[in-house]
C-alpha cells in the first residue's frame, strides 16, 4: 500500500508538468494581456511598455514559462496583478468562504441523495420513486441564477425572512457565537440552492447502485435467513452500493475549493469563484494560473485518495 501511494505520488510529477504546460500555453494563446484589458484612454505607450517590463510580459513565452514554473516550484505563486497582493493571500482571503457553503451543501446533498436513492431503488416505479425522479430532475435542470433570483424574490423581498445577499450583516461586527449565527443565516439560501443542484445526479448514482446490489444473491440470502428488511437494506446492501460513490467523493475534493461562480454572484457570496472568473477576464495571469494549478493538484489528489480508499473499502480490489 505504502509503495503504491509513493508510486502514484511520483506519477503526479509528470502529470503536473504536462498540466502546467497546457494551462500556460492556453493562457498565452488567449488574446490580450493585463494591460490591454485595462483599456485606459490616457495610457501612453511608454507607460504600457514599462508595465509589461515590470510584469515580465515583454519576454518570450518560453522564457516566461520557465520563470513562472521556477517560482511555482519554490512555492512562490507571484503577486496577483489586479489585487497587487500575493496570490496565496488572495486565495486565502476568499477560498474559505467558498469552502463553507460547498462543504455544507456536500454534506446535505449526500445525506439526501443516500436516502432518496435507497428508497427510490427499494420502491422502484412506485409513486414515491416517480415523484423523487421528477423533483430531482426539476432541481437539476433549473439554472442556478434563475432559482437563486427566484428564492431571493420569494424569501427575501416578499417574505423578508432571509437577507438578499452577503455573508454577514453590514456593520454588525459580531464575534464568536453571534458571528456564526449571522453567517448561518446568510448562507442558508445559497446552500439550499447549491444542494438542490448537486443532489440530483448523486441520487441517480445511488439509485442505480442500489438497484444492482439489491438483486444480488447475497441479498436474497440475507432476506431468506430472516433478517429484518432494514438491516438488509442499510447494512448489507447500502455498504456495497456505496462503493462506487467513493470515486465520486474523490471528485468532490476540488469542488469544495473551486467556488460556485454564478451562485456566488447572485448571492453576493465573497467566494473565490467570482474572483477567479474576473481574473480571467482581466488577464491576471499569476492568479489565473496559480489557482488553476491549485485546482489541478486537488483533482489529482482527489483521484489518488479515491483509489486508495476504494482499496481499503473493497477487499476485492488489491492495490499493488
Amino acid at each position: 500500500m505504502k509503495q503504491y501511494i509513493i508510486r502514484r505520488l511520483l506519477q503526479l510529477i509528470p502529470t503536473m508538468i504536462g498540466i502546467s504546460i497546457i494551462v500556460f500555453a492556453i493562457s498565452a494563446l488567449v488574446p490580450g494581456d493585463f494591460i490591454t484589458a485595462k483599456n485606459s484612454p490616457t495610457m501612453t505607450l511608454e507607460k504600457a511598455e514599462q508595465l509589461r517590463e515590470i510584469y515580465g510580459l515583454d519576454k518570450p513565452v518560453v522564457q516566461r514559462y520557465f520563470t513562472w514554473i521556477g517560482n511555482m516550484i519554490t512555492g512562490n505563486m507571484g503577486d496577483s496583478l489586479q489585487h497587487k497582493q500575493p496570490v496565496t493571500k488572495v486565495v486565502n482571503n476568499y477560498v474559505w468562504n467558498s469552502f463553507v457553503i460547498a462543504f455544507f451543501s456536500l454534506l446535505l446533498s449526500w445525506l439526501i441523495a443516500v436516502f432518496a436513492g435507497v428508497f427510490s431503488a427499494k420502491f422502484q416505479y412506485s409513486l414515491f420513486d416517480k415523484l423523487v425522479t421528477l423533483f430531482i430532475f426539476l432541481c437539476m435542470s433549473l439554472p442556478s441564477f434563475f432559482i437563486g433570483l427566484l428564492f431571493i424574490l420569494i424569501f427575501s423581498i416578499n417574505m423578508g425572512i432571509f437577507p438578499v445577499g452577503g455573508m454577514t450583516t453590514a456593520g454588525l461586527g459580531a464575534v464568536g457565537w453571534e458571528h456564526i449565527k449571522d453567517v448561518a443565516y446568510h448562507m442558508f439560501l445559497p446552500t439550499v440552492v447549491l444542494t438542490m443542484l448537486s443532489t440530483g445526479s448523486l441520487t441517480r448514482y445511488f439509485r442505480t447502485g442500489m438497484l444492482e446490489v439489491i438483486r444480488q444473491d447475497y441479498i436474497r440470502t440475507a432476506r431468506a435467513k430472516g433478517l429484518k428488511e432494514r438491516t438488509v437494506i442499510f447494512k448489507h446492501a447500502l455498504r456495497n452500493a456505496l462503493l462506487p460513490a467513493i470515486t465520486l467523493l474523490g471528485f468532490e475534493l476540488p469542488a469544495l475549493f473551486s467556488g460556485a461562480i454564478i451562485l456566488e454572484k447572485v448571492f453576493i457570496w465573497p467566494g473565490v469563484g467570482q474572483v477567479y472568473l474576473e481574473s480571467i477576464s482581466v488577464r491576471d495571469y499569476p492568479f489565473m494560473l496559480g489557482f488553476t494549478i491549485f485546482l489541478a493538484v486537488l483533482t489529482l489528489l482527489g483521484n489518488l485518495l479515491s483509489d486508495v480508499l476504494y482499496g481499503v473499502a473493497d477487499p476485492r480490489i488489491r492495490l499493488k
Partner: protein
Amino acid sequence: MSKKLSGMMVILLFMMTILAACSGGDKAAEPVKENPPATTTDTNKDKPADPAPAPTPAPADDTKNDGLFPASDKSLNPALAKNRKDTLIIGMTAPKGTFSPLFWSTAYDKYVVETVFDSFLAVQGDGTYAESLAEKIDVSEDGLKYTYHLKPGVKYSDGTPVTVKDYLFALKVLHDPQYDGESDILADKIKGGQEYHDGKAKDISGVKIIDDNTVEVTVTEVNAQTKVDLGTIELLPESYYGKNFKFGNLDSVKALSDKPIGSGKYIVKKFTPGQEVVMEANPNYFNGAPKIKNLIYKTTADETRLAMLQTGEVDVDMVSVNEDSVEELKGMGFLDVNIFPTNGYGYIAFNHKDKKFQDVKVRQALTIGLNRKDIVAGVYGKFADVINIPESKQAWAYTNEGIEPYEFDIEKAKQLLDEAGWKVGADGIREKDGTKFKINFSATADNPVVESLLPIMTKNYKELGIDISAETLDFNAISEKRKTGKFESFFAAWGLTPDPDSTVYITKGAQNNLAYSNKKVDELMLKGKKTLDIEGRKEAYKQVYQELNKDLPVIFLYQRRDMWAINSRITGFDITPYKNFTYSLTQVQITE
C-alpha cells in the same frame, strides 16, 4: 401506459423549466456590468456611453432623461433602513483591498481612497478643480513652476502632521522603476524625474521642499493638465508607508494597501474582502467632521442591486440605466433617483489603413446610412443620446456649434457612396475597381448595445448595397485585434476623463489604433494641451470637435446614462459625472 404518461410529464416539465429559464435569463442580463464614472481606467470596456446631444434637443417633461427624480412617498421606507440612525451603507462592486492612493486599480478601491485620503486639489461638480488640502497654488508665468502651499495644522488619523515631505515621498514612489499603479507621473515631465526613474539620480531635482508646508515643482514641458495631475496626488504619511521603502522595491509600501492611514473624512476600521469596508468618521477632519458616524461600503452585484435597495439593506447604490430599472426604482417610492450622462461614449471604429475607409464620403455615408437613433433607443429607451462628437455633453469642452447631426437618411447615404465611386453591381453589392464593398465587423460580446446594433446595422447596410459579416468577440480579443491592426471595423466604448486631452485621435497617439491621422486635429489637440487658460482651451477643443465631426474618424454612436439611487432619508449628496459621491460625504446627513 403509465410509464409513458409520466415520461410525458417529465418532458413537459422540462420544457416549462426551459421557458422559465429563458425569461429568467433575460432579466438577469439586463444590468450591464457596471463601472462607475470618471476614473480613467476601467470605465466602460463594456459599457457604452457618450456625449453629444440628440439631434432633437429640448426634452419635454416625460422625455426627461437625466436629472433628479425625487422620492414620491417617503413613508414606504423599509424599517431596516429607518432603524439605522447613525450608519450609512453604500452598495458597490467589491473593492479589491488596494486602498492605497498609489496602487488602487479599480474605481471601487478609488472610492475608498477618496474617502480616506486628501490631495491639494479636489474635483468640483463641473469637472474643474478647487483647493482642498492646498491653501493656494502658484503657477509661474511660463507654466513650468508650480508651488503648492499646504494648509497648516492638518493631521493624519494616527496623529502625525501632514507635511509636503509626504508629497515628495509619494512622488518618489510614483517615479520608482518598479511602480505599476495607474498613475503615469513620467508624462508630467517633472525635472529630473526620468533620471530618478532610471536610477541615475538620487533625488528628483525638480522638486524643492521650501518648508514643511510649501513645495515647488519644476517641469520641463508646458501641459495644461500638470497643475491638476500634480495636485491630485493624495498625501500619505511617510512615517507609516515609508518605513522600509527602498528605491526599486515597493513591496513594503504595497503590503500596507489594505490598512490605509490618511488625513481623510473617514478612517477604515475593518475590511473584509468581498464583503464590506467599515469606516468611522474622522472627528478631526480638517474640513469639518462628517455628520454620519459610521460608513460602510457593502458589496452588491448587478443581479440584486435593486433587491438590496428595496429591502433597505443598502442606502445608496449605482444601478445601470434602462427604462425598466428606472421605472422600478421610481416605483419603490422611497428612493431619490439621480441620473446623469455617463462619462464615455460608444462608437464604431474603422481601420484607416483599409482603402475603402480612407474616403471621408464613405465614412459619412456609413454614418448617415445607419439608424443610430433606433439602435440606441432599442437598448436604453430614452436614457441615452445619439452623439456626433467624442465629448460628454456635460464637459466644459463640449460644443454643439457647427456640429452636423448626421440624421438617418438612407437615400443621401446611397448618393454619397455613388459619388465616392462605389456603384451597385449585378448582385446588388456595391463595387469599385473590381472590389466588392464588404465589411468584416467585430463587436464585444458582453455589451448590451450589440444586440440592438447588429440587426439594424445589417439591415441598413444591406440596403446600401454593402456586404457585412459580423462576429462577436470577447473584449480582450477585440483589444488584441485593435493593437495589431488586424481588423476592418469594430464596435467598442471609450471612457472619458474630465480633461478633454486624449491620444485617441491624434496621429500615432498611444490609444490611436485606428491609424487615423489628421494634421488639423493634431495641431489643435496640441494647442489645447499647451494652452493654460481655459477659454483658449475651449476654443481649441471646439475646433477639434468640429473637425472630428466633419471628418468622422469613427461612427459616433451614443452617450448613455449613469444612475444613483439614494434612500430618501439620506440628504446632501452632490454627485455629477465628474464628482464621485465620496466628495460630498462630509455634508451628507440622515434625516427622518
